[in-house]
């Protein structure tokens, strides 16, 4: 007969209706699957008792696929077909992956995932300017088994975990919670979801890794307060500040370094070995060999004062060195220090001090290193939580969340709130980025803002969705572009277009646009243009603070220019229609002022433009009045012409 698990009171599942749900930590280096059994979250091991599945996928010529240890073993022999750390490529284009030449893969970029068409027909589409950079699709990898996308590669890993879970739980899964770094952008989250779907998993929710870790530690049952999650993984570092209040988790801030992890510590030992033995330019096989030994030495030093490294290189040379804990600490000190900078930034983003942090959770195998624990302890002035296995803590938390979402636990349900790492907005006239959802907004969220047409008779609007902190679109990242068509022809400024941004609980973005006066709503699917790396997010954030002053100037200038252009157009239009109302002297005066304004437009001086705009406005007051007298029965005296146009 089937094996039974103990349920919470009143929650026994009906026969054949077990709601089996798992949590999956889809890691850069290793992946794990966990579930809640008999009320306890446990990691599910494979038939050999191993919990961690190396995130390595090897494609073979016969079309078969090896995942995990088997693939990892062939990493150096068959590097081109053995994909490691595929997580770095999720939702990224070739341009986003900087170190391409150092990787042993054959890449193939794919064309843009959406058309960047401008307006057509009579649809004036003034918002369509070339926006952000790098709108390429996700990169692809050429393997012996054909071209594979990172989504497909990740799906292979997830498939192995799904099969493991189904064997361990004796039934089909209702769904899974998959964790992603708090920093993952829309494209990366979408790619993760796609991979899960491809692997035959129903995604209950994407959960931020730090939040999962906090849940694993039961912080959701702990006292209210602010917690920090310090996650030093194989290749990435993330710090998140979470606030727990009334049973609700909210990610206050997230920061990190996408190019810092446990592997860098291995690299330091590797370099030290090269130096000690006067070696240079080893072949890939020897490099791998030494790195493996370096890693083993690092792990040894966690609870030993010193370790001996012995290896035989392919040319017969023998390596035999003793590495002490003190030496290792000295050579890795700046790596540990590098984690503290993002920590300070995250605290600053959250507008908190060290004293506000109630607890610190350690995640990632690299946090086992004593020097890391000491540095964190010193920084926060308290001992971090380390009693759960830092490699498993994220998966354990994801499993608890999955169990809850599958409906296996009643009552005390919590809602998880995360934040958006970078502001989301659209491009407006003049190449300015109008932020609709500011950075660090909690999700799920929905916000709407109204926009209008820029030209008379404009029947379409091109909407470019951008992500970033800078004022100019060209400095932000373009996520998607779409068009709203069928706007009834009206004078400029009369149409009211409501643009709604919706970010769901998984952090995925939906944008819709609706013309309010006519009720026309175009069904729009926003496909994210894949690619915004952690490093880029960090860089964009830094840029935004460094360029704050420039940006403000640039913004004022563009705003003035836009206003001036609009005014010139309105006056020109009025002259064409009602020029006969003016005598020659009046007309000349207006035209002179228009010329003067056009000239100042060339200058990058927003104050000069502003003055010229005011002058032109002033000289057209009389004209505006005449036009009004002519066409409208009731008089709107004293208004200038541009106000008249807007009605």
């Amino acid at each position, binding site marked *: *007969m089937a094996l039974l698990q103990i*349920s919470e*009171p009143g929650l*026994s599942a*009906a026969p054949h209706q077990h709601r089996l749900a798992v949590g999956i930590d889809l890691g850069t280096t290793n992946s794990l699957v966990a579930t809640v059994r008999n009320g306890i979250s446990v990691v599910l091991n494979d038939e050999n008792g191993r919990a961690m599945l190396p995130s390595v996928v090897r494609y073979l010529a016969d079309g078969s696929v090896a995942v995990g240890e088997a693939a990892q073993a062939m990493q150096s022999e068959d590097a081109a077909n053995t994909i490691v750390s595929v997580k770095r490529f999720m939702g990224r284009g070739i341009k986003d992956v900087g170190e391409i030449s150092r990787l042993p893969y054959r890449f193939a970029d794919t064309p843009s995932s959406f058309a960047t068409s401008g307006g057509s027909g009579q649809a004036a589409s003034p918002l369509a300017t070339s926006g952000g950079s790098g709108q390429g699709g996700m990169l692809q990898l050429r393997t012996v088994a054909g071209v594979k996308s990172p989504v497909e590669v990740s799906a292979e890993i997830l498939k192995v975990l799904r099969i493991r879970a189904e064997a*361990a739980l004796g039934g089909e899964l209702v769904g899974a919670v998959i964790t992603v770094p708090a920093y993952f952008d829309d494209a990366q989250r979408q790619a993760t979801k796609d991979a899960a779907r491809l692997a035959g998993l129903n995604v209950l929710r994407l959960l931020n890794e730090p939040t999962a870790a906090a849940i694993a530690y039961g912080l959701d049952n702990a006292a209210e307060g602010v917690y920090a999650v310090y996650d030093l993984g194989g290749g990435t570092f993330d710090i998140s500040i979470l606030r727990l209040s009334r049973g609700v988790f909210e990610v206050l801030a997230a920061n990190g370094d996408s190019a810092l992890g446990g592997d860098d510590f291995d690299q330091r030992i590797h370099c030290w070995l090269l130096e000690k033995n006067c070696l240079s330019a080893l072949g890939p096989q020897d490099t791998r060999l030494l790195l493996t030994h370096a890693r083993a030495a690092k792990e040894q030093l966690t609870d030993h004062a010193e370790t001996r490294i012995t290896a035989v290189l392919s040319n017969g040379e023998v390596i035999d060195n003793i590495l002490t804990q003190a030496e290792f600490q000295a050579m890795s000190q700046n790596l540990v220090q590098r984690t503290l900078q993002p920590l300070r930034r995250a605290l600053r983003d959250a507008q908190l001090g060290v004293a506000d942090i109630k607890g610190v959770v350690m995640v990632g195998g690299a946090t086992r290193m004593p020097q890391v624990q000491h540095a964190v302890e010193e920084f926060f002035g308290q001992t971090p939580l380390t009693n759960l296995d830092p490699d498993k803590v994220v998966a354990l938390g994801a499993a608890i969340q999955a169990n809850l979402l599958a409906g296996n636990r009643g009552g005390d349900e919590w809602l998880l709130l995360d934040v958006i790492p970078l502001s989301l907005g659209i491009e407006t006239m003049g190449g300015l980025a109008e932020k609709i959802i500011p950075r660090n907004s909690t999700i799920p969220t929905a916000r709407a803002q109204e926009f209008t047409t820029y030209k008379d008779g404009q029947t379409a609007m091109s909407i470019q969705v951008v992500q970033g902190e800078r004022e100019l679109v060209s400095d932000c990242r373009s996520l998607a572009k779409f068009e709203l068509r069928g706007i009834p022809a009206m004078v400029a400024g009369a149409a009211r277009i409501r643009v709604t941004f919706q970010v769901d609980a998984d952090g995925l973005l939906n944008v819709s646009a609706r013309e309010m006066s006519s009720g026309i709503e175009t069904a729009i699917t926003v496909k994210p243009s894949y690619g915004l790396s952690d490093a880029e997010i960090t860089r964009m954030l830094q840029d935004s603070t460094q360029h704050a002053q420039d940006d403000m100037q640039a913004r004022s200038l563009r705003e003035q220019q836009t206003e001036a252009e609009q005014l010139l157009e309105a006056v020109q239009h009025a002259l064409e229609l009602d020029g006969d109302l003016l005598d020659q002297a009046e007309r000349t005066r207006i035209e002179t002022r228009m010329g003067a304004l056009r000239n100042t437009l060339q200058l990058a001086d927003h104050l000069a433009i502003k003055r010229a705009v005011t002058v032109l406005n002033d000289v057209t007051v009389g004209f505006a009045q005449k036009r009004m007298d002519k066409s409208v029965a009731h008089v709107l005296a004293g208004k200038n012409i541009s106000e008249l146009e807007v009605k």
Partner: protein
Amino acid sequence: MAITLTENAAKHVRNFIAKRGKGVGLRIGVRTSGCSGMAYKLEFADEAASDDHQFTSHGVTVLVDPKSLPYIDGMELDYTREGLNEGFKFSNPNVKNQCGCGESFGV
């Protein structure tokens, strides 16, 4: 008659209750559902009802409501591992037939 646990099952139950942090014991019962008429209920118990039958087996308190008892009296609860899966298994002397997977049964 009584409900008993094997020593292995009792060890696991004690362990689960300890990790759960609360609970007075295990509640076992039946309810009418499933393809063969009845289904087992296996839950943590946070409190005993006044009319519960109480059994103690290897240090674990087992609570059974009076309506369920006739269907499961004399039953033994074991904990086993089958491949990657592990969990509790009932051997119920009252069962006359059961569905293919054994999740529901008739008496």
